[in-house]
């Protein structure tokens, strides 16, 4: 393959991965932004999505697409329960307390998965043909095209939800000024539950989509969580468009780094981005510079 073709191939792979990173990032930026919760368990909902898809497919014999939807529903439901039972009682506590609670949830979820499914990686069957589709200079597996399409659809759906619906307006209001939103009649309790459930559902979607691409194992959530944080920082807290572009940037940066520098340090790209952005431009690359007063 020529130099240009290699580059284009890396870019395409990066975009596909980046789409799912965007899903992870959007969920986390909403949770982090609206609820001020450092959700260390976000990666576990990603893993839950993958295991959920495995559960529906391999054990209950459902159709592939039904399994995906089931996995997402599982993420939403568990997220809502988690918020209601664990986070709501701790509403006024310091950020360290909520961080530790989420760390505890992370430990409990990951080891429950280990207990239930064992440590051996599982693979998820998919109905797409194996032969790659050739699009000019690049080729891509049909499964990955589906992942890209589904991820983009979910990203667009999230944007529409936040920008065009009343619920989305309420969420944006809560993010901007919680007290005033409450005074205007927004039910903050409900918004928090919806936000956490929605964010967890998106994480589960990312896991369910990437499950068939890679393999499913209990600690798959750890790196996913860190990448989600990276995307949130890149895009700026609470910034959905930022998270979307941030996810794509991270995916492409990782692919280019792995392809041209070293694949061993692939995951370091996310860490390095976090460090550089936080030190040089903490509000994120995409924050609009708003001056109030």
């Amino acid at each position, binding site marked *: 393959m020529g130099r240009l073709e290699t580059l284009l191939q890396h870019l395409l792979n990066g975009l596909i991965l980046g789409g799912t990173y965007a899903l992870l990032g959007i969920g986390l930026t909403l949770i982090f932004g609206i609820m001020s919760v450092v959700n260390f368990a976000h990666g576990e909902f990603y893993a839950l999505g993958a295991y959920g898809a495995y559960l529906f497919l391999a054990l209950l014999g459902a159709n592939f697409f039904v399994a995906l939807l089931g996995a997402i529903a599982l993420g939403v439901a568990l997220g809502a329960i988690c918020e209601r039972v664990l986070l709501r009682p701790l509403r006024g506590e310091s*950020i360290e307390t909520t961080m530790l609670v989420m760390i505890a949830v992370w430990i409990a979820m990951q080891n429950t998965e280990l207990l239930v499914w064992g440590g051996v990686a599982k693979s998820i069957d998919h109905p797409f043909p194996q032969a790659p589709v050739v699009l000019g200079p690049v080729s891509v597996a049909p499964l990955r095209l589906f992942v890209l399409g589904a991820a983009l659809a979910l990203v667009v759906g999230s944007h529409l939800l936040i920008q065009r619906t009343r619920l989305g307006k309420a969420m944006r209001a809560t993010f901007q000024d919680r007290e005033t939103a409450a005074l205007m009649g927004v039910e903050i309790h409900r918004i928090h539950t919806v936000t956490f459930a929605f964010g967890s559902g998106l994480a589960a979607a990312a896991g369910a989509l990437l499950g068939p691409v890679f393999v499913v194992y209990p600690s798959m959530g750890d790196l996913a969580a860190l990448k989600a944080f990276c995307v949130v920082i890149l895009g700026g807290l609470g910034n959905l468009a930022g998270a979307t572009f941030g996810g794509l940037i991270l995916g492409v940066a990782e692919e280019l780094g792995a392809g041209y520098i070293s694949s*061993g340090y692939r995951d370091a790209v996310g860490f390095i981005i976090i460090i550089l952005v*936080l030190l040089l431009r*903490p509000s994120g690359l995409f924050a609009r510079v708003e001056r109030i007063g």
Partner: protein
Amino acid sequence: MKRVGTGVLVAMLLALPAWVWNPYHLHILIMAGIFAVLALSLNLLLGYTGQLSLGHAAFFGIGAYASALLTLRLDWPVWTGFAAATVLAGLAGYGVGKVSLKLRGAYFVLVTISFAGVTYLVSLNWMELTNGPLGLPGVPAPMLTIPGVVRLSFVSKAAYYYLVLAVAAASYALCHRLVHSRIGRAFVALRENEALAESVGVNGTRYLVLAAVVSAALAGAAGSLYAHYTRFVSPEVFLFMYTVTMAIMVVAGGKGTLAGPVVGAVLFTVLPEALRELTSWQWQMVLYGVLLLLIVFFLPKGIVPTFASWIREWRGAS
């Protein structure tokens, strides 16, 4: 009353190997001691200055690798390696602190996690220096040689127990001096209200970086102790799990107190081992997570402060 109590405690600790002869139990105590040093170090940042650093395993690992490499590759005596590890970790703490203490809250947490993540990946991939995932086996044990008088090798568990006890006691004493000095009061002032503290002349960055340096140096010392005890160092020392364990020890034991982290260290070293006797390994970790949840919900101040207030209430009532 307090002096008698402390004296009894010291005597018990010194005499411990006499009646705890099971090597497995001694091993648990040694690990508890190493973690006590780690917990004390994290407590300086988390408990006294209020900065949650979740990258602390990086300093532990830097200390372990520095000590191991200096004694293995350059044939330095272990004591020099120990000192060097402490200094190197402290320098790393200075670098990380200077750079990341511009940030606060969750962003500081994420930067510290990222530093630890990068150090892990470096230790995994830089084969020439660290031997990658194969690790460094055969790290020498400490040897005390006074020519003509004594030649003592700290290989036996009882001997290492005394070494760890000495370092833990020294760390406790250091933290005690620091916390009860002007510097300690500056730390607490910064934790409670940084803007107000700065307005009365407490230079936030300078004191926070100082806390980071001492904290990292202690963690490096613990790392060196660990390296010469297990005599094998691998990238696993950088695992997030160690940092989480340290954080649990500090918070559950009681952050902002000196006894809290020590109690937490002992408790959370003994507890997984005790759970291991009772249940399988996977249940152990699930229970661990549940226990952490329960402590955060019901004993939010930590074990030592909660017990201390109970004792005070009981004393006040009677």
